[in-house]
């Protein structure tokens, strides 16, 4: 197997024995990126020079015996993570020239363990999108079929794994932005419980929903990455001060007696046949492994998408007010006067989808509409949380599809925002409930497109979904298939 195809734990074994150096691994990765990037477009910014310097440092650290499983591993980050001294655009023209003076906590934690940063990955602008088509830096293509979208908004983070351009990546998930692209690209992607990972230094889209998580080749890598980035950060008031378990130790392969809920609202008529078939096979596999299935109900599922598009856009309309051309980012050259400067800078800097969501959110918060939209949406959010709380009284894990269809074609839904929004129908409720979920490869469509299954856990129940995902992975071979690119 090529170096660029290895998982974190496989590459670590080679680094540890000296069979491969971090510099060699990094060079192999950079060469791979160079060869496939024109067909994929995963990256916005590449950092080969600093990557090689970091790899050298990692090699010294390995030689000195002060290395752990992540030392020398070449990674890439969604361009939503602030990286000190390295341009961070969030996929937006308004930040095309923004070089942050500090780094995100999640990246600091990886860097402290000796990870190598290959570059910054493409994404939907400000993480608003399900297809990576709203990026100001061009579309990212799905490595399994380059006419199709990789999913979004962490499309670059998933495509880079599928195209073997990074050993692992970090993404963010506000309404499915890690799980949906992971599903479409045949990777493992985990959205942790809200508060599990610090949001400090992560450009905010919707603060009460955003959460950082890994996209990896397998579940074991996912456990390693999560264990590193998780944990309390005094700089993020919403990060939870709870101990971080040993996620790798949770991967026992044993799911006997595990109670898995199947929410009837997710297995609806009209679900894509290939997706349905993949779910049926997955259920069969789990049965064989000794898990039990229970039909459950999440009765407020129908309201999730509408609720999400009020809360997320309301928060976004406020979060994105700081991009005014005054202190950083794009400033219009033609402006006359202050208000004109702000208006033009924002008009020129933001793309159509971002503007659409700022307007929606501004409307939802406006005087006279606040109670009818924002307050009502918060009440529904509480009901949706209640759905999950009740369901978890009888089951350990909930199994659903990640997305109603495999990856769609580039351009297919670009002019139909509502259809686009509905592609996140199975992932959004998890963000509203604040709990954790992961996408695990569970098969392919007739056309050869990856299909993911979603395992939803209790709040801070990441160990359980990792264990369930890992057991499934051990019993199947979907995750070992490689996109032909």
């Amino acid at each position: 197997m090529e170096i660029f195809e290895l998982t974190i734990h496989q590459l670590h074994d080679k680094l540890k024995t000296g069979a491969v150096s971090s510099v060699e691994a990094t060079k192999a990765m950079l060469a791979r990126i160079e060869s496939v990037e024109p067909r994929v477009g995963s990256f916005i910014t590449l950092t080969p020079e600093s990557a090689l310097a970091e790899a050298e440092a990692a090699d010294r650290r390995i030689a000195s015996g002060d290395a752990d499983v992540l030392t020398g591993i070449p990674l890439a980050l969604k361009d939503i993570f602030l990286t000190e001294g390295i341009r961070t655009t969030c996929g937006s023209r308004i930040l095309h020239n923004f070089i942050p003076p500090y780094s995100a906590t999640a990246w600091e934690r990886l860097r402290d363990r000796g990870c190598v940063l290959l570059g910054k990955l493409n994404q939907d602008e400000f993480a608003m999108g399900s297809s990576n088509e709203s990026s100001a830096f061009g579309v990212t293509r799905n490595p399994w079929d380059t006419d199709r979208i990789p999913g979004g908004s962490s499309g670059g983070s998933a495509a880079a794994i599928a195209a073997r351009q990074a050993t692992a990546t970090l993404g963010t998930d506000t309404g499915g932005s890690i799980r949906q692209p992971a599903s479409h690209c045949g990777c493992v992607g985990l959205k942790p419980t809200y508060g599990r990972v610090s949001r400090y230094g992560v450009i905010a889209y919707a603060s009460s929903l955003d959460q950082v998580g890994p996209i990896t080749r397998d579940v074991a890598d996912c456990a390693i990455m999560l264990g590193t980035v998780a944990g309390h950060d005094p700089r993020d008031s919403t990060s939870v001060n709870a101990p971080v378990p040993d996620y790798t130790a949770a991967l026992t392969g044993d799911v006997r007696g595990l109670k898995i809920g199947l929410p009837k609202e997710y297995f609806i008529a009209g679900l894509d046949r290939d997706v349905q078939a993949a779910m049926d096979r997955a259920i069969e596999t789990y049965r064989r492994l000794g898990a039990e299935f229970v039909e459950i109900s999440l009765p407020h599922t129908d309201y999730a998408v509408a609720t999400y598009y009020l809360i997320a856009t309301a928060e976004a309309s406020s979060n994105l007010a700081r991009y005014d051309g005054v202190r950083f980012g794009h400033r219009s050259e033609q402006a006359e006067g202050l208000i004109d400067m702000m208006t033009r800078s924002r008009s020129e800097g933001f793309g159509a989808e971002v503007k659409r969501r700022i307007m929606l959110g501004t409307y939802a918060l406006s005087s006279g509409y606040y109670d009818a939209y924002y307050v009502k949406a918060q009440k529904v959010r509480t009901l949706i949380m209640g759905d999950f709380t009740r369901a978890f009284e009888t089951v350990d894990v909930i199994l659903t599809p990640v997305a109603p269809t495999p990856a769609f074609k580039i351009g297919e839904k670009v002019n139909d925002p509502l259809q686009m929004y509905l592609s996140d129908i199975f992932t959004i409720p998890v963000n509203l409930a604040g709990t954790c979920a992961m996408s695990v490869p569970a098969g392919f469509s007739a056309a050869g497109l990856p299909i993911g299954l979603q395992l939803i856990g209790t709040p801070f129940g990441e160990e359980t979904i990792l264990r369930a995902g890992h057991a499934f992975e051990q019993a199947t071979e979907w995750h070992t298939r490689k996109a032909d690119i």
Partner: protein
Amino acid sequence: MKFQPVIGLEVHAQLKTGSKIFCGCSTTFGSEPNSQTCPVCLGLPGALPVLNKKVVEFAIRAGLATNCTIAHHSVFARKNYFYPDLPKGYQISQFEEPICRKGWLDIQVEGQETKRIGITRIHMEEDAGKLVHGDVPGLDDGSGVDLNRACTPLLEIVSEPDLRSSDEAVAYLKQLHRIVTWLGICDGNMEEGSFRCDANVSVMPVGSDTLGTRAEIKNVNSFKFVKQAIEYEIQRQIDLIEDGGSVVQETRLFDPNSGATRSMRSKEEAHDYRYFPDPDLVPLVIGADWVQRAQQELPELPEHRQQRFITELGLPEYDAEVLTASRGLADYFEECVAFHHNAKAVSNWLMGEVTRALNDSGMAIETCPVIPRQLAELIKLIDNGAISGKIAKTVFEEMWNNGGEPQAIVEKQGLAQVSDSGAIEAVIDEIIAANMAQVEEFRGGKEKVFGFFVGQVMRASKGKANPALVNELLLAKLKG
């Protein structure tokens, strides 16, 4: 028709914390522009606020001192509007659920009975930065933004519309000012904007119970201007109504140069701030134990102390009020009295010599070079008859300028009072011998001349002669 003014005040008090409300940057005033900033107060992408616990402590203190209920659960909210001095495009404040609710303050306007003024709420919020125009190094001809002040902590204290005159408004403002400075949570500097006020003013016909339309007057930054602005605004509204017009709801700006208010923006132009709970901050939960601890740690409040000075120490009302103008002064006074139990004498000295010396040198009582024990000893020397009040002033001046204990100064400079009647008689004899004409006048019934003799004797003794003794002996000698 007679009109009744109705006034409510919104006071912004900048809190005297060392660091800002949501980040660790310093709050020092007057540093180089943008030198006290970080990703959080610059509003950089990805930065998140973390609440400074000290601000909560201060808010609880202010709430307790103004008889508010401290909310068990309060919430920070975003107030959204665009302005270049507002880095995030929103201000973090509190809206629907403030930390302190429903309190009151008693005020006293001279010649009137004590009146209770309701306090609607007190909430915490961050300040904005400020714009600088021209005349700044590195800034050619345009305007710049200084974000040193951004994110410094403020309390907004909102009164009920219970005030009925500009005098009441000023009395309320002074009372509030005394409390926040007394608690040590605000330096009270109105010129630097540490304590500033917006006034909501309306008028209604006397006897009516329907409030008139109000105008909000922005940023009035002295007690004098508050009085001026309110009085101008009351008259403006009355004139308007009497001329058949009506008051429109608007925001007005006070111009200290003309003493007038002028329209800033109408209700239609008012911002829709789109308040909503800040998702970056968790709700603030304050347990009963925290409030209880704050209550126990609260210093004796000025009003209570003022009363105690009257009832326990027998001070006149006026003295008690002056001495409780600041906690430092009241503390100084009580410390003095503890050393020497002549409260009225101490009061006289504090309100007289000490205040004069402090004012002349621009110093605060906290840095007074004469410490309370020394002042007490000086007054003790007078009361013991060791020195006269006049000599005491000389001794005080020496203590102020060069330090030293009063007793030592008196001894070293030979200032002790002369109570030796033989010595004084000798001086009197000399004076009488040299001024026979005046002696005749006195004996002829012109008793005013007595003062002349006292002055002569005191001068000859360099002020050291015991005045009572001088009077007694002089009278005997003159009467022959």
